[in-house]
């Protein structure tokens, strides 16, 4: 089992001078051949984690293992780990060929072997005609490729990528994402990728670790972290989302299904299905209730079997309603923003002045099915209790993206 693991962190803590804790008691493992990502806002400790893997930083406490062996005290040049640096860190005094050959030259490989391996690598990224070019003559994307093969030519067990695509423009970034993904599958090397771009992390990774203020909030497949975020931080950081919070209590949904009622501040009581896989929060504990914008339906009229009196309660306070046997959540608010994305339209409904608006994503499938939504009009936002996700409330430590 353990020979399957490429990398393990065991209770790793890193403090910088002045007792500033950047990484707190982290434990996780990465499997051989996995594409593993650290996702988090800047300053969350993800780059420090990477530097502890490469050996450029030493953990203050805890163990870092590679293929089962503790490597805490192994100098970077003795680790079979290579990095693609954020700004590439290509050597400006060496040409493309010599940059790629650097690692092999340090290991004193024979010249013929160096030439063969460097040429093969440059061919793999279609840079074979650039060998004599100087680094300054390359575009951002070309520098990126050189940085990538400079690391890969040494056949590392683990390739570390520190926001390697951040400096590229969107088109190039998408192209490089595809190339990276293809390269990783072709080589079978373990990739550990650091990014603050959630889209990038979800598209590329086998598993994602979402970091916040030196902690890992959740590790999971892209689907898991998106569909079942563990904390409100994860829910907010990965994709757009609506987050409500308040004390939880157990209740029965329609059809006798066990559910949870969350008494939110201002949005009334909202319902979620009870997930057997997750422990029920103790009664009265504050929890987060998350619903993704694409799960929300917009209605002009209140859903069937709704008594007008309850739906029109003050500030659109919702009720557990059961059209067709499902418990749904209903909120009513004023349309304040409408952004057309092409396949979808994003809508913001203001429930009350002092509360954040509800964000909904409407698919533009058939023009006729959906009445055109008008700014300033009042609409109903409706979603199934089963689409509500219960999460732990994370303390609002790190600044969140809007």
């Amino acid at each position: 089992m353990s020979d399957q693991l490429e990398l393990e962190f065991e209770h790793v803590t890193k403090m910088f001078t002045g007792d500033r804790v950047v990484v707190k008691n982290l434990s996780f493992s990465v499997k051989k051949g996995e594409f593993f990502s650290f996702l988090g806002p800047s300053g969350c400790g993800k780059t420090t984690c990477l530097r502890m893997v490469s050996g450029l930083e030493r953990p203050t406490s805890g163990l870092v293992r590679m293929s089962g062996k503790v490597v805490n005290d192994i100098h970077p040049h003795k680790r079979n780990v290579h990095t693609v640096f954020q700004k590439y860190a290509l050597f400006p005094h060496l040409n493309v060929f010599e940059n790629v050959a650097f690692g092999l030259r340090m290991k004193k490989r024979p010249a013929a072997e160096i030439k063969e391996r460097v040429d093969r690598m440059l061919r793999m990224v279609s840079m074979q005609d650039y060998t004599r070019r100087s680094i300054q003559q390359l575009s951002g994307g070309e520098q990126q490729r050189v940085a990538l093969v400079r690391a890969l030519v040494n056949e590392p067990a683990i390739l570390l990528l520190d926001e390697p695509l951040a400096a590229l423009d969107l088109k190039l970034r998408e192209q490089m994402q595809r190339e990276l993904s293809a390269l990783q599958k072709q080589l079978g090397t373990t990739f550990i990728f650091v990014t603050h771009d959630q889209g990038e992390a979800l598209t590329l990774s086998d598993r994602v670790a979402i970091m916040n203020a030196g902690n890992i909030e959740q590790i999971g497949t892209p689907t898991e972290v998106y569909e079942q975020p563990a904390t409100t931080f994860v829910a907010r950081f990965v994709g757009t989302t609506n987050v409500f919070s308040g004390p939880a209590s157990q209740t029965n949904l329609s059809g006798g299904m066990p559910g949870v009622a969350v008494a939110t501040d201002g949005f009334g009581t909202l319902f979620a299905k009870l997930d057997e896989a997750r422990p029920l929060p103790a009664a009265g504990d504050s929890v987060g209730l998350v619903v993704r914008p694409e799960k929300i339906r917009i209605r002009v009229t209140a859903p069937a079997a709704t008594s007008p009196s309850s739906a029109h309660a003050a500030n659109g306070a919702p009720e557990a309603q059961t059209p067709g046997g499902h418990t749904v959540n209903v909120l009513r608010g004023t349309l304040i923003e409408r952004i057309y994305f092409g396949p979808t339209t994003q809508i913001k409904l203001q429930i009350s002045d002092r509360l954040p608006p509800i964000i909904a994503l409407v698919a533009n499938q058939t023009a006729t099915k959906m009445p055109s939504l008008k700014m300033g009009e009042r609409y109903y936002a409706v979603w199934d209790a089963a689409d509500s996700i219960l999460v732990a409330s994370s303390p609002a430590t790190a600044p969140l993206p809007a």
Partner: protein
Amino acid sequence: MTSKQSRRRPPLLILPSLAWFIVFLIIPIGIVLLYSIRHKGAYGQIDWHLSLDNYRRAFEPIYLLIVVRSLWLAAYTTAICLALSYPLAYFMARSSDSAKKILLALVIIPFWTNFVIRVYSLKLVLGENGTINTILMKLQLITVPLQLVDNQFGVSIGMVYNYLPFMVLPMYVALDKFDFTLMDAAYDLGATKTQTILRVLLPLSLPGIVTGSLFVFIPAFGEFVIPDLLGGSQSMYVGTLITETFLKSRDGPFGSALSSFLVLFAMGAFMFVLSRQAAADETQRLRPLEGPALTPAADAGVSLHV
């Protein structure tokens, strides 16, 4: 746009500096060159008998020995300054911004004192009854005062002490612009510390090393005050030789020939280094650290008065 305009208009603003250069550089060098081909007559007068005899005379063994001794002094002064400056400049470049300012000031502050006073006070520190000998005697580490001055050792100390900042500043400018993540990248690619220094740090800080070495080597070669004050009577260097030829032997033409050699040597060294750098730029088309523009003092935001 601007360059076209300046090409069309007569460059009036450079006239003052042009005049300065003509009056204080071109004309004096012309006079020196002219003197160097004239002759000292039997009664000390300067004849108009023109020949290259003075230059021929400069190649006599007695003078060649002095040239070699001066070259040796300049060479090891440069080497010691280099060895001392590199770690210091590296440390300065890696310090925080506020520490950088303080360290830079510490390097420069000695220059606020007059050069001759500084050299003379070294004589007091190193002398027989100087600070160092007094302390060592009091500690009973020695019984007889050490001969620290009026010899080659005193000259070496004086030279290194005086020329160190000329090496530190260009080196600091070069290293301050160095991207230290390149060292991380080298370690990451399997380079040891020594390999990283030799393959990455040194090549990329070479412009600073070259500039600093020129700044030390050229004036050190012609230095005459320090050997004069700290070297006692035994040692003769090119600088002292020229001074004495002018002031004691009153042989202006021969002194001028020697001076011309010195100027030629300095220019030659300069041109050689510049052409090498230009060649390197041409082949690699690289500007790794934007090589200090030979004005490191101005770059570092300081000025030196020697």
